[in-house]
């Protein structure tokens, strides 16, 4: 009985069965508590999750022939040939113009369409399993607004079932970001949707800073319910951010000064680790993980992804970003129709989405549907995310990423731009443009074979390759399908 009470308390909002209870029922066991439930289930999940490309098979040479190749970087090739070896694309071109190495495994893909693995620019893969179950969520740390020292890499659960589900529809890479409650929510990772373990799947740690600005981040109800706390207004949010950035500049100055002092041999010798002051009465430099985390972003070395919806909020946060020379990627911008020219003038890339966000009551039904096209028309480099409308990112829907891009095409975005917006553009925004996002020699062989247009809802993905290795087209969901189709 005590444990039941505990479980209710732990899941105050959703009093329900523990996240993975169904597994126990099937196994005939009873969860003793959450922790044993979690650990056994983790084993079960790991079993279900596809094993990584085996080491020996990465050396296999595979040649896909006869397909329509959507290269993204240099147009479409009808009846093309693509060769993969050692995890890379080693040749691509028209049939007859590409030499297929001896001993290569031939994949006849006549009638099929082949394209680079899709890249979702914003997900919470590995930070959530079941949305309503708090125990399976590591989405954000809302105890403070300024949390740059939260590293998504520390929470990323590589065995999440969400990953194979997305991969089955041709998603091979993704950015994983924390949720949006904080103005500075943490640092993103860039992942590959297959790999032996977490380390093999994380291609880049701390690749970008996740920032947010707007109504949502105000602490009107305190931090986690209750009375309003600072910052409860946009004025508060901005002043807090500005103070933080100034603190970082101050921190850099002191750190550099301390480092200079450290260079002098006598100072280093005299310094005692636990001393407050050294012999000359100078303060010993004490590390501050929060401020330190922001340094590469204030130096403009890595992108800052700013989630912001309203036009007037975009103008405010961009002014602050420019004041501190941040390298900005705008995210969402779904109510920004009045500042599109400004966005173009700033020359910042934009993750548009959700394309399904709702127009205001006074707007035409397609006011948001047309945004990708309107931005691209103005020369803005865009990515498209998989989010559904009106809420936080739901990476359970990441498999619908290509359809969001297709919908942008329906509302005026040129097809090639749409495909770029979920492949090459995303790779470039996050520093992987030389490795991913197009079918080019030397790039990682993340390749998808489908029976038609990748952006059409009717199209079925037949095979996904990650690092040149065919990924088994199996998920927990296909297993259920097959089990009940008998």
């Amino acid at each position, binding site marked *: 009985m005590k444990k039941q009470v505990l479980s209710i308390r732990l899941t105050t909002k959703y009093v329900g069965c523990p996240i993975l209870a169904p597994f126990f029922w099937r196994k005939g066991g009873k969860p003793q508590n959450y922790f044993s439930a979690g650990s056994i289930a983790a084993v079960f999940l790991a079993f279900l999750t596809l094993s990584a490309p085996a080491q020996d098979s990465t050396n296999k040479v595979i040649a896909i022939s006869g397909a329509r190749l959507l290269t993204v970087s240099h147009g479409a090739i009808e009846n093309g040939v693509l060769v993969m070896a050692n995890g890379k694309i080693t040749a691509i071109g028209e049939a007859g113009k590409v030499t297929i190495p001896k001993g290569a495994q031939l994949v006849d893909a006549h009638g099929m369409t082949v394209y680079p693995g899709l890249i979702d620019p914003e997900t919470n893969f590995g930070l959530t399993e079941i949305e*309503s179950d708090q125990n399976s969520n590591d989405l954000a740390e809302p105890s403070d607004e300024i949390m740059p020292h939260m590293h998504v890499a520390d929470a990323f659960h590589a065995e999440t079932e969400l990953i194979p589900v997305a991969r089955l529809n041709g998603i091979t890479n993704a950015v994983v970001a924390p949720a949006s409650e904080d103005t500075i929510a943490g640092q993103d990772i860039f992942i590959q949707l297959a790999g032996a373990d977490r380390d093999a799947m994380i291609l880049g740690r701390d690749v970008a800073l996740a920032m947010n600005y707007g109504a949502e981040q105000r602490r009107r109800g305190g931090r986690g319910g209750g009375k309003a706390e600072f910052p409860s207004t946009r004025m508060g949010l901005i002043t807090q951010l500005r103070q933080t950035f100034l603190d970082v500049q101050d921190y850099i100055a002191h750190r550099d000064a301390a480092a200079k002092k450290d260079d002098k041999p006598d100072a280093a010798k005299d310094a005692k680790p636990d001393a407050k002051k050294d012999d000359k009465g100078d303060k010993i430099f004490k590390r501050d993980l929060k401020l330190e985390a922001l340094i590469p972003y204030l130096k403009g070395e890595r992108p800052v992804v700013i989630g912001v919806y309203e036009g007037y909020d975009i103008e405010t946060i961009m002014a602050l970003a420019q004041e501190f020379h941040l390298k900005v990627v705008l995210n969402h911008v779904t109510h920004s129709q009045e500042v599109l020219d400004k966005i173009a003038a700033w020359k910042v890339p934009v993750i548009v989405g959700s394309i399904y966000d709702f127009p205001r009551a006074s707007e035409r*039904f397609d006011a948001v549907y047309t945004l990708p096209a309107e931005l691209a028309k103005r020369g803005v480099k865009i990515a498209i995310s998989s989010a559904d409308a009106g809420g936080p990112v739901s990476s359970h829907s990441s498999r619908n990423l290509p359809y969001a891009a297709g919908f942008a095409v329906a509302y005026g975005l040129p097809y090639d731009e749409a495909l770029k917006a979920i492949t090459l553009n995303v790779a470039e925004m996050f520093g992987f443009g030389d490795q991913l996002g197009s079918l080019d020699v030397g790039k990682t062989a993340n390749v998808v074979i489908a029976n038609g247009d990748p952006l059409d809802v009717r199209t079925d993905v037949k095979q996904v390759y990650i690092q040149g290795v065919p990924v088994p087209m199996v998920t927990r969901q296909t297993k259920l399908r097959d089990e009940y189709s008998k």
Partner: protein
Amino acid sequence: MHIFEPLRPVARHLPRASKSARSIIAVLFGCATLAAAIPAQQSATTAPDIVFKNATVMTASHGTIEHGSVWVHAGKIAGVGATVNAPAGAVVVDATGLWLTPGIIDPHSHSALDNDVNEATSPVTPSMHMIDAFDNRDKALYQALAGGVTTELLLHGSANMIGGQAVVIKNKVGLDRDAMLFPNAPGSIKFASGENPKRVYGGRNQLPSTRMGNFEVMRQAFEDAKNYTATFDAYNAKVAKGDKDAIPPKRDLKLEALADVLRGKLYVQIHCYRADEFLTEEAIAHEYGYKIRAFHHALEMYKVAGKIAPEDTAIATFTDWWGFKDEAWDAIPWNAVMSMRKGVRVALKSDSNDHVRRLNQEAGKMVHYGGATEDEAIRMVTLNPAWIIGVDQQTGSIDVGKDADLVLWNKDPLSTYARAQKVYIDGDLFFDVSLPGLGTPHFSGVMHGDNEAGSDDEEDGQ
């Protein structure tokens, strides 16, 4: 009155109430003021005939006609085929290169209710009427119309085991409230099960906090309804015997509504996810003698479809939404087609102000997930949801005699690229993408509603 009166199909496969019970109920409803009078169709008689020519006509009932024509007369479909006998004066719509489908129908919506979705103060609230919360100026209706949606079933939420009574609307954006009500549509009542009721009431340390509690609350409600009916039967019998001193029992709106369920006067629409719960729900329905019209969400139907198909209970399901709660953990996108292949009538629904705008694409996904034919796929968002609502004799397919609820698309409506060009309801044009502004011939002004999501499933009763 109409929303309480079932059409014949309900009575056909449900136990008939005794004559005396019926007369009492009729008397009771004679006094009821809740029912809105639904006016006869407007403007149809004076509108000119319309002929769509050279369209790809997806009829939803009898396949696709390439280069087909459809003739609309007096708000109804008067002809469909390779050629039609339209009069010379008919307005011709050249649909060369375009697709024509029946209007899209959403059998599970909480739009336009200003978040008055759940009366989450008791697990049994059958006398709630969604029409009382219906805001016909909500922008969600317009945005759905622009996605080709012509009919919606606006349901009570899922906080309560027995929720309230639905309203069926035709999406005639710009007309007044009563003109948007679907004429002569049967009444539906929303039931729920599973996590939501037990979360809402368990969170307050009330019954139900478990699935055991959930179903017991339901059984007790029907026991109460049976006693209530018996009291009226006894009173009726006394009156019939000429007892002039007989005192009529006190009316109770809640029990009246439950009695209507037992008498088959309301379609029962049940929010239900898990395979075991479908079976329990059917067993309780058998025990108390009512039929379940449809399971909504029904994400695990693929596990027991063979057992449910003979019950003639349909499903209104999501295509690929999953993992948002424990009871959605076994959701698979092949559910709809697998259940259909086992004989279950399958509709797709939105439960969302977002997805309602692109149900045609959701249907397109069924080609991908399970290999539905285009005919089967389009039926999942037209004729099958019409059946669930009980308006399949009036709308849901392109057949002679049916309401001219039609959508003209620029591309195959099952593709990602389709946009609704024109939307007709009862032969009248309610959306035209080529018009400036909102594209609504009957509406110009300010809409309501920045309550966004339109789903009850996550946050109800919080």
